[in-house]
């Protein structure tokens, strides 16, 4: 219970810290949104009217109070550029990004379990060598390059998949494989290592002696125990997925959080940018929290002290 409390508290502290710092840092130093909104030759009156409309003519503390007031009823302010509530822009984008991330996670976990288990079975076999090669390529090749190559091969040359946009399930295939490829190496190595240590345990010999089929031993008895370390890696991978999906979104023109953040950056649209940042960081913190809690449920030996 104490563990739960301290985890939730520190997650809250992190989210609040990020919110406050993003709000002030953006306002102190970023460009004047009125100038970017108005055309090049806009005179002072026009700029002033934009400033009044955006609220950037008021003091920063004043703006922060308004922002906090908005937060209490779930509003993140209005986007300067799109002239509509930030939440109505960020939430659909977040949904798309999460769909993409979940697809990638599913693909990579399935592949990690298959490749990891098989390469742990024969550490010097062809399978293990092949997986090690895939792992090295996945670690060395930048995600966006993999994405470009996939587009080149599968949409430009073969024409099997569309190269971008998000209109249906087919559009998810290339970006999610690209993303999956970037988190696969660490998952596969961890799983292979933990399957290998599990194989030395006595219970494996026991079930073997009982005459249970090999695939059942591997995929039912061993895997259940070997998956624990995988779970912590998955927690870390959520960060990779969120960050990586920003890149994948740019490559594949996918309407997610990342594309939105870049629009916000180019338009000096603070409300949009801070909305995206706060929502993305909170999502990441919450997912990590959920994974930590899940970990304690699955493995009761883990307490706060033992975890670190």
């Amino acid at each position: 219970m104490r563990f739960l409390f301290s985890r939730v508290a520190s997650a809250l502290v992190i989210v609040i810290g990020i919110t406050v710092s993003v709000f002030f840092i953006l306002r102190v130093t970023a460009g004047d949104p009125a100038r970017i909104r108005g055309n090049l030759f806009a005179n002072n009156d026009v700029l002033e009217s934009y400033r009044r409309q955006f609220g950037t003519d008021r003091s920063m503390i004043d703006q922060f109070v308004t922002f906090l007031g908005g937060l209490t009823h779930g509003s993140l302010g209005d986007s300067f550029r799109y002239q509509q509530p930030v939440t109505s822009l960020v939430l659909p984008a977040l949904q798309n990004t999460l769909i993409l991330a979940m697809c990638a996670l599913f693909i990579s976990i399935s592949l990690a379990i298959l490749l990891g288990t098989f390469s742990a079975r024969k550490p010097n076999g062809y399978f293990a060598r092949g997986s090690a090669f895939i792992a090295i390529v996945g670690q060395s090749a930048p995600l966006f390059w993999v994405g470009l190559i996939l587009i080149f091969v599968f949409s430009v040359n073969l024409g099997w998949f569309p190269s971008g946009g998000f209109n249906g399930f087919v559009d998810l295939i290339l970006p999610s494989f690209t993303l999956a490829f970037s988190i696969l190496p660490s998952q596969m190595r961890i799983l292979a290592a933990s399957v290998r240590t599990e194989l030395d345990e006595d219970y494996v010999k026991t079930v073997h002696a009982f005459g249970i089929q090999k695939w059942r031993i591997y995929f039912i008895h061993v895997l259940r125990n070997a998956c624990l370390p995988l779970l912590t890696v998955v927690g870390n991978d959520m960060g990779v997925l969120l960050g990586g999906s920003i890149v994948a979104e740019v490559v594949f023109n996918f309407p997610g959080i990342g594309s939105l953040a870049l629009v916000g950056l180019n338009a000096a649209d603070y409300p949009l940018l801070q909305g995206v940042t706060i929502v993305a960081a909170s999502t990441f913190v919450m997912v990590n929290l959920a994974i930590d809690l899940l970990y304690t449920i699955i493995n009761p030996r883990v307490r706060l002290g033992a975890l670190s």
Partner: protein
Amino acid sequence: MKKSYQGRILLLLSTSMMILIMFVCLVGPFFLPDPLAFDLSAAFRTPLSADHLFGTDALGRDNLSRIASGGRVSLMVSILGMLGSLTIGTIMGLISGSQFRILAYVSDRLIDVQMAFPYILLAIVVVSITSSSLPILVLLMVLAGWPSAARVIRSIVLSERPKDYVKAAQIVGADQKRVLIRYIGPALIPAILTIAPLQASAMIVMEATLSFLGLGVQPPTPSWGGMLLDGKVYLSQAWWLTTIPGLAIAITCATLIGIGEGLSRKLHGDRSRRIDLESNFISKLSNKK
């Protein structure tokens, strides 16, 4: 016996490969055509054509000299980023592994916050504040890179602290600071050496990613990521504009990973510890991609 032999070969091969890459990037630009000189009549030459081994881009600039001088920028920025993030990471790792309660708590939370923040978002925020330049790029890479190093150092400090030699030092009267720096410090060196090449390879990918998003090295200065960004537009006409810089990144990173692997086989004979260190670091490292 066989293992250490393999490790030595791996280390030898990847180190010589790295020296070759650095040689091409550092010395190459003196002998190759100007990477910025454009000649529209020579646009889109395919690789292996006369005068242009790697072909030319949309403006007729020589791809090979762009790879070489882009590599110079990428390697320089990545090495600086690696040094900076390892330094800060080591210091913060020592602090959060220490027995200074408050300091350790603060630096733990700092690591958490930093890790909770996808570095590309951080880059977008920072670049929206200041326009991008090379020092800012290095700063971003240091900011994004130190927590992974700090976590590894912290876990080693925590595992070294209960050992007898540390207790002996404390009994002799060494204070906390002295124990950390003089006694535990040397025990960190193999780990730092092992993660340094891995960190450098992560930095190269990071530089390329940021430049690809237009947040890193700005044109006309060539960089590997920037070349991929330029080449993306011509994906269907000129495959070499994306394939070659990508291969350059991938080969360099694979070489650095090879150095890391070879070093760790040499430095940590004990296999279980090695796997623990590596997988620990890789899982922390991947957090930033």
